[in-house]
C-alpha cells in the first residue's frame, strides 16, 4: 500500500488500511472461535445435547485479534519494509552467530549430562528418551526430505518395520537386541527400496500421496496379518535390551548384582537414554559424512535440479533409491529401539499422525539442517509437554506457536545451507537460493 520507491513516505501511517485489515482479522477469528470457544457442547446423561455459551471469552479473543492486528500493522508501517539485517545491529548479529557456533557442543554436553542432573526425575528421563527418539526419526527423514527433496508422508512405515522386525526376531528366534538392531535396519531399508521403485517416476503431490498410502498399507497389513503380528493385539513381552548380554534387571546375574550395587529401575532408563543417544548420534554422524561424499552431493543436486543431474551422468534412479534406503534404515533402527523400550508394540503406535509429526519436525527445523531438526524435535515434543498446564488450550497455543514460527521463519528454524566443500571459506547459503525439491 505504501510506495516503496519513496523513502520519505515510509512513516506515513495508513490508519484506514490498518483498521480495515484488523477488522477483517477480527471477523475471521470470530467465525473460527465462535464454534471452537463460543459454544461448548457435551453429551448429557441421557444422550441429549447439552450446550452452553461462552461469549465473554469469545469477545475477549476477537478483541485481542483486532488490537493485535492493528498494532502489528501500524508497527510494520512505521518501520517500513525492513529486513532483520536493518533492524538488528551488527554487533548483536555477530553475538548471535557466535552463540550459534557454541550451541551444538553445548547442547550435546547438556544432553550427555541429562541422566546425571535429572537422575531422580523419572518423568524428565522418559521425556528425554522420547525427544531423542524423535530427533533420530527427524534426522532419518531429513535424508529423504531435506537432502534428496523427496516428500515422504509414510515414514512411519519404516519405523513400524523396524519395530516389528525386532519384536518378531527377538520373540521367535530369541535373538539379542544387538543382533536384531542391524537386521531391523536392513529390513527397513529393503522396504525403503521397495517403496522407492514404484515411486521413482512420481513427483511432488503424487509422490506424497503414494508414500502416504504406503504407510497405511504397512499398518493395515500389520493389523490383518494376525498369525504373524498378532493383529490389533500387538506383540507383548518383547525382550529388554541387555548390556552385551548382561540383563539390567533384579536377577542374580543382572548388572546391579554383578557390580555389587543396589538395584534400581532407573538403571534401565539411563541405559535406554544412552542407547537412543548413541543411535541418534550415529545417524547424525553418518548423515554428516554422507553429505560430504559424492552420494550426498548427488542427493542435494537431485533436490536442486533433476534434469541437470541426468545431463551430468548421474543415475537418478539409484540415487533416489539410496536416499530412500538410508532414511528407512535409520527409521528401522529407531523402530527397534522403540520396541525394546516399550516391551509391547501394536499397530496403534504407527499411525499417519506419527509420520506427520516427524515431517513437521523436519520442516520446522529447516530442511536439510541437522541442528534445526534436533531443535524442532525438542520444541515439538518437549514444548508440547511444557504446555500441559494449559489444559484445554494446549493445542490452541501449540498451533499458534507453530503458525507464528512459520510466519517468521518460513524455511524453518535453520533455513540456510552450509556448503559441503570449500576452497577458502565456507559461506552459508541463503535459504532463498536453496530449492525445496520437487517432492
Amino acid at each position, binding site marked *: 500500500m505504501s510506495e516503496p520507491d519513496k523513502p520519505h513516505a515510509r512513516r506515513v501511517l495508513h490508519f484506514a488500511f490498518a483498521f480495515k485489515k484488523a477488522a477483517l482479522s477480527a471477523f475471521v477469528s470470530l467465525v473460527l472461535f465462535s464454534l471452537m470457544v463460543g459454544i461448548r457442547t457435551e453429551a448429557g446423561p441421557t444422550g441429549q445435547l447439552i450446550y452452553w455459551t461462552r461469549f465473554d471469552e469469545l469477545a475477549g479473543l476477537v478483541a485481542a485479534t483486532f488490537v493485535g492486528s492493528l498494532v502489528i500493522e501500524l508497527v510494520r508501517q512505521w518501520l517500513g519494509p525492513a529486513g532483520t539485517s536493518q533492524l538488528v545491529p551488527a554487533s548483536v548479529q555477530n553475538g548471535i552467530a557466535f552463540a550459534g557456533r557454541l550451541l551444538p557442543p553445548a547442547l550435546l554436553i547438556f544432553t550427555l549430562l541429562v541422566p546425571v542432573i535429572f537422575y531422580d526425575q523419572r518423568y524428565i528421563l522418559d521425556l528425554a528418551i522420547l525427544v531423542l527418539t524423535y530427533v533420530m526419526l527427524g534426522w532419518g527423514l531429513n535424508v529423504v526430505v531435506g537432502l534428496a527433496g523427496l516428500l515422504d508422508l509414510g515414514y512411519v512405515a519404516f519405523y513400524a518395520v523396524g519395530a516389528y522386525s525386532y519384536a518378531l526376531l527377538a520373540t521367535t528366534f530369541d535373538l539379542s537386541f544387538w543382533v536384531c538392531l542391524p537386521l531391523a535396519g536392513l529390513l527397513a531399508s529393503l522396504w525403503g527400496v521397495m517403496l522407492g521403485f514404484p515411486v521413482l517416476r512420481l513427483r511432488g503431490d503424487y509422490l506424497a500421496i503414494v508414500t502416504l498410502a504406503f504407510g497405511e498399507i504397512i499398518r493395515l497389513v500389520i493389523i490383518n496379518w494376525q498369525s504373524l503380528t498378532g493383529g490389533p493385539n500387538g506383540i507383548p513381552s518383547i525382550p529388554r535390551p541387555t548390556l552385551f548380554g548382561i540383563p539390567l534387571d533384579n536377577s542374580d546375574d543382572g548388572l546391579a548384582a554383578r557390580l555389587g550395587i543396589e538395584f534400581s529401575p532407573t538403571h534401565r532408563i539411563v541405559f535406554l537414554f544412552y542407547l537412543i543417544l548413541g543411535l541418534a548420534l550415529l545417524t547424525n554422524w*553418518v548423515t554428516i*559424512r*554422507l553429505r560430504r*561424499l*559424492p*552420494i550426498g*552431493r*548427488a542427493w*542435494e*543436486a537431485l533436490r*536442486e*535440479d533433476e*534434469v*541437470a*543431474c*541426468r*545431463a*551430468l*551422468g*548421474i*543415475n*537418478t534412479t539409484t540415487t533416489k533409491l*539410496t536416499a530412500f534406503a538410508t532414511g528407512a534404515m535409520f527409521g528401522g533402527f529407531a523402530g527397534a529401539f522403540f520396541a525394546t523400550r516399550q516391551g509391547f508394540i501394536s499397530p496403534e503406535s504407527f499411525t499417519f499422525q506419527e509420520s506427520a509429526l516427524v515431517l513437521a519436525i523436519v520442516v520446522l527445523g529447516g530442511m536439510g539442517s541437522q541442528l534445526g531438526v534436533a531443535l524442532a524435535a525438542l520444541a515439538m515434543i518437549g514444548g508440547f509437554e511444557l504446555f500441559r498446564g494449559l489444559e484445554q488450550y494446549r493445542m490452541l497455543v501449540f498451533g499458534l506457536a507453530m503458525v507464528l514460527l512459520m510466519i517468521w521463519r518460513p524455511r524453518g528454524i535453520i533455513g540456510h*545451507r552450509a*556448503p*559441503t*566443500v*570449500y*576452497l*577458502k*571459506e*565456507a*559461506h552459508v*547459503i*541463503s535459504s532463498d*537460493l*536453496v*530449492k525445496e525439491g520437487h517432492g
Partner: protein
Amino acid sequence: MSGDRTDRILGVDQLTMRFGGIVAVNELSFDAGRRRITALIGPNGAGKTTVFNCITGFYKPTSGTIRLTHGAAEIALERLNDFRIAKQAKVARTFQNIRLFPGMTALENLMVAQHNMLMRASGLTLLGLIGAPSYRAAEKRAIDLASFWLRRIGLFERADDAAGNLPYGDQRRLEIARAMCTEPALLCLDEPAAGLNARESAALNELLLSIRAEEGTSILLIEHDMSVVMEISDHVVVMDYGVKIAEGTPQQVRDDPKVIAAYLGADEEEAIAVMESDT
C-alpha cells in the same frame, strides 16, 4: 565432408522426431567433426533444441540413428538412457535456460559433475564413509580439476559463493565449466551466448576456442548470436521447419540464398545479422 568417417565424432542419420502429429525434426542428417566446432542454426522453432534433446537422450527419436565415434568404437546414442549418454558416451550438455544447482556453491556444482569418478573412488560410498586415503586423494584431484576450471572461467575468487548468486554471464560460463568437468568427448551447448553482452560474448568465443584447442573436445552448438557462430564455427548446419536447408563453412552458409530467405521469412534482424556480420 560428411563422408569422412575417420574424422567425425558424431553422425546423425535420417533423424526424425514426431510429437503426435507434429514433425519437429524430419529426416535430418549431418556430421560433427572431431575437434571441430559445429554450429546448428535456424529460425526459432526450427527444431534445433529437439535435435539436441535427441542427441543427449532426453528424447527418444522416432526413427533414425545417432552414432558417436570413439576411436574404433561406435556408440548408438539413440539406444542409451539420458544419464548413460553422459556417463558412457561422454557427451555433456548445457541448457538454453541455465540449469545450475543454485543452492550449491560454484565449487560444489563442479564436484557434482565429477560424481561418477568420485563414486568409484569412494567404493560406492563405503570407502568414503570410513575416510579411506584413496578416496581422499581422489577428492583432492576432483577439487584440483574444479579449481582449474574455475580459474579458467575467471571465477576462482567466487568458488565458495552460491551459484544462484552469480551474475548471469558467470552462470553461463560456470555451466560450461561444469559440463567440462565430466571430461566429455563431445560438448553440446544450447545457446551459450543468449543474454550475454558483447564483451561477455567475446570472452565466450575465446573460452570455446581454447576448449577445442587445449582439451581437444569437439563442440556442437546451437546459437542465435551470429557473431559467435560466424567467428568460431568450422562447420554450420542450417535448419528450418525440422529439415536441413544448407550446410557448409560459415562463408558458404552466409551466401546461401535459401538461408537468407529462411531468416528473412522468420526474423528480419537475424537475417541482416547473417548478411552483415564479417568474420
